[in-house]
């Protein structure tokens, strides 16, 4: 087995045969069940909370509120949130109190018995209003909040960032044509099939928390902070995770349940309903308003762009700043734009807090930018593909903060996807191709792993990395095996336990293979060195003359002079253990200059950028606006493909999820309340909706991750809504400027354009 082989994932059989245990499957002796009391109003002052009746209900062990918690605020970028509501509730599903009882039914009954006296306040729901000076503050105390250095915020704007390049006014002065448009997207959800679940149990001063977290280490630090105990006393274990898509990033309800377990001195379990999953998990994709204005010369040269994005951050900032910065980096995208002035505001409102859904900030921004791209071409009377060919970045071009592109594969992806799709062929009435291009990054950060060999020569990888279903942690054995001349099946993995593995950022930022893979390789190399030392002694040969092949160390050129790894491991247990620890050095960010930009944090430039192109063939029912996706082609330059099964799986899943964001997935809000908080009314794509998907991986190894691999997890979801939008416009002659592009919105656009 080598790098690049098609390897089925290690945890597949237990998952598909129902043996895999998820958090909700765990039951403990004496366990209690938790339910939450939610605000059920978008904005109100809390006058008083009376828990007496709830506490008196037989079977109730505890009812807690913020009064039972430390007076600390938490939040990754801005510490704007308390565990339970303090004084004011800011969105409909803000947690006001929690109950632990013998059964979930008793807990629910107790929740009904809690009396809260509210003074309802006018909710702030319009992001443009929220930015005005004469509008109420969602957080009256915003100025006193602690924050990460570099965050630029004021009043209701909790993340303001800019991207400035060249001289936009001069750029517009050179333009023959200026094209502008406004696009809007609704909030959408990560919607993993497994809803959130948490179990907490204390022994002495230490708490163990089983949680559906995508990021156990970052969650642990927030739990430690809010409970006021050291991180060493908090152990977070993630059993199998049933999907996350970003919705399980950050910290959620670990502290609430740990607090209940502490006062009741019993294990306490919380399992969310689907409705709670929509309303309360507070990590949907940001709703956005995107204004774009671009100047072009008649020959198709882009001279300047102005852009403004307003993201609806909801009631608390959470990890919104990732979305802010990624969205701003999508505004130039893969195109050559010499002059750019862009800004993003991320606004507090009285809605469910938004967060990091797979490729935060990107699908909706690229959907707007790529429609805009084709609208510019149309205004110039240019073919949209030719317009892209003219403007896609090439070797030596610079990105929006000056990073230089080194042989980017932007154009290669476009050509390959067009070719797979059969673009240009005559299509029946109502059908059209839709195209989108874009880019993404690989995130270089610290990560750790141990590799150890057991007495029989089998291996164990102990890693801090989190498997959220993408298969990336399942790929670690292949990387270790490659270094050690072993087979991937010889390794077990200990993972998703903060007390076992070293730090890792978690399943976020498409970073697992890139960074934890580097760590595993680093650790395996230490073991390799140790093995070679031992073997040199046994074989009486110089280390430099030895090689590790097929489970044995042998003398180069004399393969019969060999000792198996099993023999060496057995020997080692009589003396020095075979143990490696690794992290490796994250690659540096590319050279760039963001000194003119405001509020920039993690992504002032895109490290090891990759490019992509989607081409969908769609059919629009001209009478109903129903869009059917017939066929799909996508090309990516992901560098070395370590395991095609995994890479293709990410592209297929991301494409279908992106189609869902494009066509149907959006929250409908009325007066600060989500109206479609169920899988009946919030429509995901089903298996039979998925089109056939053709995939090409373009380009060679990249100087980014292990063996030349780039990040894969998030980018596939970025482009599909944009490709669909351009397809719809091509099929109907009408632009849909509101995401998701539901049948009714498509139909309305056709009516408005007078197409029918």
């Amino acid at each position, binding site marked *: 087995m080598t790098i690049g082989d098609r390897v089925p994932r290690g945890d597949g059989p237990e998952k598909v045969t129902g043996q895999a245990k998820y958090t909700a499957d765990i039951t403990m002796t004496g366990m209690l069940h938790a339910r939450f009391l939610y605000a059920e109003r978008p904005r109100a002052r809390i006058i008083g909370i009376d828990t007496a009746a709830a506490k008196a209900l037989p079977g109730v062990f505890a009812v807690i509120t913020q009064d039972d918690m430390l007076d600390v605020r938490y939040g990754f970028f801005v510490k704007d949130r308390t565990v339970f509501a303090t004084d004011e509730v800011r969105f409909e599903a803000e947690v006001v109190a929690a109950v632990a009882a013998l059964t979930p039914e008793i807990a629910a009954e107790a929740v009904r018995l809690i009396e809260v006296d509210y003074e309802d306040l006018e909710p702030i729901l319009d992001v443009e209003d929220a930015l005005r000076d004469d509008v109420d503050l969602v957080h009256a105390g915003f100025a006193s909040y602690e924050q990460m250095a570099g965050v630029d915020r004021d009043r209701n704007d909790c993340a303001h960032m800019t991207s400035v390049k060249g001289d936009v006014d001069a750029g517009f002065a050179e333009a023959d044509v200026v094209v502008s448009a406004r696009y809007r997207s609704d909030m959408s959800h990560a919607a993993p099939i497994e809803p959130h679940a948490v179990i907490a149990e204390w022994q002495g001063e230490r708490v163990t928390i089983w949680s559906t977290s995508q990021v156990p280490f970052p969650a642990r630090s927030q739990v430690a902070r809010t409970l006021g105990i050291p991180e060493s006393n908090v152990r977070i274990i993630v059993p199998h995770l049933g999907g996350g898509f970003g919705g399980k990033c950050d910290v959620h309800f670990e502290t609430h349940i740990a607090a209940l377990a502490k006062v009741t001195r019993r294990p306490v379990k919380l399992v969310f309903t689907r409705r709670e999953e929509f309303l309360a998990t507070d990590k949907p994709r940001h709703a956005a308003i995107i204004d774009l204005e671009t100047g072009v010369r008649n020959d198709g040269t882009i001279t300047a762009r102005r852009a403004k994005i307003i993201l609806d951050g909801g009631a608390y900032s959470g990890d919104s700043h990732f979305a802010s910065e990624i969205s701003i980096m999508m505004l130039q995208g893969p195109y050559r734009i010499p002059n750019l002035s862009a800004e993003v505001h991320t606004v507090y409102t009285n809605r469910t807090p938004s967060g990091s859904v797979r490729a935060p900030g990107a699908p909706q921004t690229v959907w707007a930018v790529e429609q805009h791209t084709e609208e510019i071409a149309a205004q110039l009377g240019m073919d949209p593909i030719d317009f892209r060919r003219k403007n896609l970045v090439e070797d030596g071009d610079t990105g929006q903060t000056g990073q230089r592109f080194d042989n980017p594969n932007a154009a290669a992806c476009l050509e390959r996807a067009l070719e797979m799709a059969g673009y240009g062929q005559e299509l029946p009435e109502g059908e059209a191709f839709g195209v989108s291009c874009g880019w993404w990054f690989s995130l270089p950060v610290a990560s750790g792993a141990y590799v150890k060999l057991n007495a029989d020569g089998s291996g164990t990888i102990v890693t801090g990395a989190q498997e959220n279903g993408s298969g990336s942690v399942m790929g670690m054995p292949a990387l270790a095996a490659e270094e050690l001349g072993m087979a991937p099946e010889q390794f077990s993995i200990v993972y998703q336990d903060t007390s076992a593995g070293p730090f890792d950022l978690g399943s976020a930022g498409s970073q697992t293979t890139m960074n934890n893979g580097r760590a595993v390789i680093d650790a395996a190399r230490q073991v390799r060195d140790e093995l070679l030392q031992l073997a040199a002694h046994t074989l009486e040969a110089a280390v430099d003359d030895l090689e590790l092949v097929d489970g044995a160390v042998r003398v180069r050129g004399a393969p019969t002079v060999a000792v198996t790894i099993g023999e060496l491991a057995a020997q080692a247990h009589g003396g020095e253990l075979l143990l490696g620890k690794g992290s490796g050095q994250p690659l540096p960010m590319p050279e760039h200059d963001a000194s003119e930009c405001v509020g920039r944090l993690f992504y002032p430039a895109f490290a090891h950028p990759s490019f992509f192109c989607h081409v969908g063939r769609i059919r629009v029912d001209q009478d*109903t606006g*129903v869009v059917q996706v017939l066929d799909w082609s996508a090309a990516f330059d992901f560098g070395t493909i370590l395991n095609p099964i995994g890479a293709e799986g990410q592209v297929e899943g991301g494409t279908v999820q992106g189609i869902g964001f494009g066509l149907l997935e959006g929250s409908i809000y009325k007066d600060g309340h989500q109206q479609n908080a169920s899988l009946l009314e919030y429509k995901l794509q089903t298996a039979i909706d998925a089109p056939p998907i053709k995939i090409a991986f373009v380009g060679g190894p990249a100087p980014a991750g292990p063996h030349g691999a780039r990040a894969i997890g998030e980018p596939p979801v970025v482009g599909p809504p944009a490709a669909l939008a351009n397809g719809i416009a091509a099929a109907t002659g009408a632009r849909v400027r509101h995401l998701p592009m539901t049948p009714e919105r498509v139909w309305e656009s056709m009516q408005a354009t007078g197409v029918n």
Partner: protein
Amino acid sequence: MAARQYFAPNSVDEALQVIGRHGRIGVVAGGTDAVVGHRSGKSPLADAIVGIHRLQDLNGIKVANDGGLCIGALTSYASLLSSNEVLERYTALADASAIVGSCATRNVGTLGGNIVNASPAMDTGAPLLVFDAVTELRSQARTRQLPIAELWTGPGQSVVADDELLVSVTLPSLPPQSGSAYLRLEYRRAMEIAVVGVAVQITLGADGVVAAASIALAAVGPTCFLVDAAGNAIVGRSLDESSTAEAAAAAADAARPISDNRASENYRRQMVSVVTGRAIQVAAARAAGRTVNIPASQRWREATQ
């Protein structure tokens, strides 16, 4: 909290006794509406649950001497779809059965459950209406027959009494040269709920002129309902663009849609006209002996594939 009681009667008489005592609201057939309704909090399960899945007398399809069908209330969609009579002669019911939920829903969900649940968006409602279906309701005291058009009184409401079971549904025989179709406007291809549903049943005369026609709508009023004016618009005429458009306009006129999360009132009304026109085409094609794949809703999606 009171303990819940569970009954699983083995005969219809035993079942009627139990519901005579505890009331019908605890009846569970396939449970695909009952359990979802309970979980969502919309209609909590009763304290006494009566599982009727063992009532073999309520399961199955019998062909009457005149060619009509008597379908037991417990008959699943999967069973309906394995009946040649349903597929060939009551094709609109097959169109509807084939698009309910997913495979699992079609294996577990029952026709009786769909009827008594009385959702305005139910898929078998419009087909049963155009076939003039007659329901049989039984209590300990009596057995009565009720035309399906008289059964529903509003969303989730019917005249089925608290001590009654729906036992069966009878579909009268159809003259030769009859064809039918049910089409649903849907946003995705499975696990969908009708935005607009239209059933059409057409009988052609020897001259190719429409001898009889019946058109019913789903998801655009408080219950599924027949639109006589729409059917009448094509009777005695040959089917062409103008007669079809008249029927479609009559259907749209009669629709009483609401705005909800799935669609606005205006869009729904416009779509009634579109879907009615298409359903007429399919029903007419089938009446003329041409084959249109089941489910007919797929037709516009697959037109060019």
